[in-house]
């Protein structure tokens, strides 16, 4: 989309394909069909444009003349893309660990990039401070009701695209923006009973720690390579609404996530980041099967399974190879 093609009420995201995956379905018992929701086909490379696009528009409507955001990568690309389309200047604060590919994409979309500090939380602190100045709006990557409302549009698409109500939805959790969006969508559709398997990697598993402690727990440091899941805490609202839904928190290792990225590249010809690899590990590493055996997912085979391929720009053939070497995972 170009800025002159954009119409005021039109969403900035696309309706993405829901593709039946024969290869992944084979990992689910019975004749259960598994579908992948291809958020990698969004214009900014990940699902984030759904929420970020919506919030950016709202901030401009409310009179902001400039937007600031903080991101470890994909939210920054979404912020830059959205700002370009709705024609508002944008600065994205990123930590030093941000992949050069993401920094390039943010700049290619016309936004300024400021590399600050060693962690996402430092970048977020600086961006929020900057937004205290008049006329500047903070484009939160995951912690805002408009973000969750935007992300929830994925569920409306699934209702139309699926042959029947899903038995299970699988996704990854960073700050919880995607999960909150899915939950808001489930509520709207009257599907609150649909189990959502929320995947993280060790070293980026703040949601899992919070669920176990029954309160918000902040990770000291992100030690996983899945930087796109690298929020130190989840949005507090997620813990508030958890009891109204059926969320199952699971954690896999970086090695499992990388192995899943490689398998997926061969099965579906899409390169994904390790954060998305965590989602796919639910299938490839037997997490869903284990949950069924344990009685946590008793209805797994009674309807289609949906895996949200969240997308992400920080992946390439050489990164995949490098991760495979680092984690002793065979690269074909």
């Amino acid at each position: 989309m170009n800025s002159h093609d954009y119409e005021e009420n039109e969403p900035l995201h696309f309706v993405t394909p829901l593709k039946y995956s024969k290869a992944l379905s084979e990992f689910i018992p019975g004749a259960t069909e598994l579908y992948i929701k291809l958020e990698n086909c969004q214009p900014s490379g990940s699902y984030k444009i759904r929420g970020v696009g919506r919030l950016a528009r709202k901030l401009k409507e409310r009179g902001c003349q400039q937007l600031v955001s903080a991101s470890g990568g994909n939210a920054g690309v979404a912020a830059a893309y959205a700002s370009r389309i709705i024609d508002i200047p944008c600065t994205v604060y990123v930590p030093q660990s941000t992949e050069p590919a993401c920094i390039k994409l943010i700049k290619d979309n016309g936004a300024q990039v400021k590399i600050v500090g060693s962690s996402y939380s430092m970048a977020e602190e600086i961006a929020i401070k900057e937004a205290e100045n008049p006329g500047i709006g903070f484009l939160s990557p995951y912690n805002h009701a408009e973000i969750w409302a935007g992300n929830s549009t994925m569920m409306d698409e699934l209702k139309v695209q699926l042959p029947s109500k899903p038995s299970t939805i699988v996704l990854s959790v960073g700050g919880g923006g995607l999960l909150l969006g899915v939950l808001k969508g489930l509520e709207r559709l009257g599907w609150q009973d649909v189990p959502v398997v929320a995947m993280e990697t060790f070293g980026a598993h703040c949601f899992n720690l919070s669920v176990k402690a029954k309160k918000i727990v902040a990770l000291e440091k992100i030690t996983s390579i899945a930087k796109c899941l690298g929020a130190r805490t989840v949005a507090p609202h997620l813990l508030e609404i958890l009891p109204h839904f059926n969320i199952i928190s699971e954690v896999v290792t970086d090695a499992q996530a990388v192995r899943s990225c490689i398998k997926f590249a061969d099965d579906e010809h899409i390169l994904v980041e390790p954060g998305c690899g965590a989602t796919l590990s639910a299938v490839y590493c037997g997490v869903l099967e284990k949950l069924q055996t344990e009685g946590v997912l008793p209805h797994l085979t009674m309807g289609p399974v949906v895996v949200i391929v969240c997308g992400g720009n920080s992946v390439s053939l050489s990164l995949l190879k490098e991760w495979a070497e680092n984690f002793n995972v065979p690269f074909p």
Partner: protein
Amino acid sequence: MSSKDSDERPLHIVTPLLRSVALAKHLPMCKNVYLKMENCQVSGSFKMRGFGHLCQKLKQEGCQYLVVTSSGNTGLAVASASQIIGIPCTVFLPENSPLVSAERLQKNGAQVVVKGADVTAAAMFAQEEAKKCGALYIDPMDPRVWTGHSTVVDELVMQLSDKPSVIVAAVGDGGLLTGVLKGLERAGWQDVPVVAMETVGTHCLNLSVTAKKITVLDKITSIAICLGSSVINPYLWDILPQFNVISEVVTDAQAIRSCIKFADDECTIVEPGCGASLASVYCGVLTRLHAEGKLPHLESRPAVIIVCGGRSVSLHLLQDWAKQFNVPFPST
């Protein structure tokens, strides 16, 4: 989709049209470069458009058993379509097909018979079988296939705000190209240049254009076997003069280099036949054509590359081909 729904709704989906910042860098004079992502299509390539449409029509006419000859994506499209509409299907493969092709077809519900030294011989056996069993033999040159393929242009009309400056498509037997031309006619876009890409060793269209008459390739010597037809369909030859088709050829090395670059740029892995389309950008074909005055609107209107998709590729194969053609893997 239920068997009843599949009688009415098309079996293919509307695929994303994504703006590519990465490819635009190789075509700086171009207004925008868009990718029509047929790799996201049901069955993994654009072929579901035409063969899905044909299978639906054949079922409506009372067909109860389908037979087809294919070494790859056509077979997959027919197998997937047959499963959706609930009719059994047998795919005849030539003996020189990779083993994985037969396995993939079987996993998609087709009966597979491997017989015949090449596609022509396999087709003979397939036609005999169809006669024997009262099955319908799928003719890839059935005009309904081109009608189905032409829907790709209907989507471009909806998705673009501007008439394209050029459309790039790979050519095997010319089915996709014929469909694109029919779509251009319907849209009133007959003057849009279509750059028809082939590889050396599958370049039957180029030979025909050079000789000014239909010319048969002696032998398929390219690795892009998905483009491996020895002759284009005669109907395409008849209608060619009514359009602005520019025939271009690249080497296997250029196609492979483009596949590898595309995997890094757009996180999508494609077959060498599709690499040929991408080589139009990566290897300067469109730049040269623009300099020659053949793409007069490149600077003011968007370019569209049809990413035709295809399942016969993997990380392992990409690396093998990279070694074979002395191409860096990953791309530098």
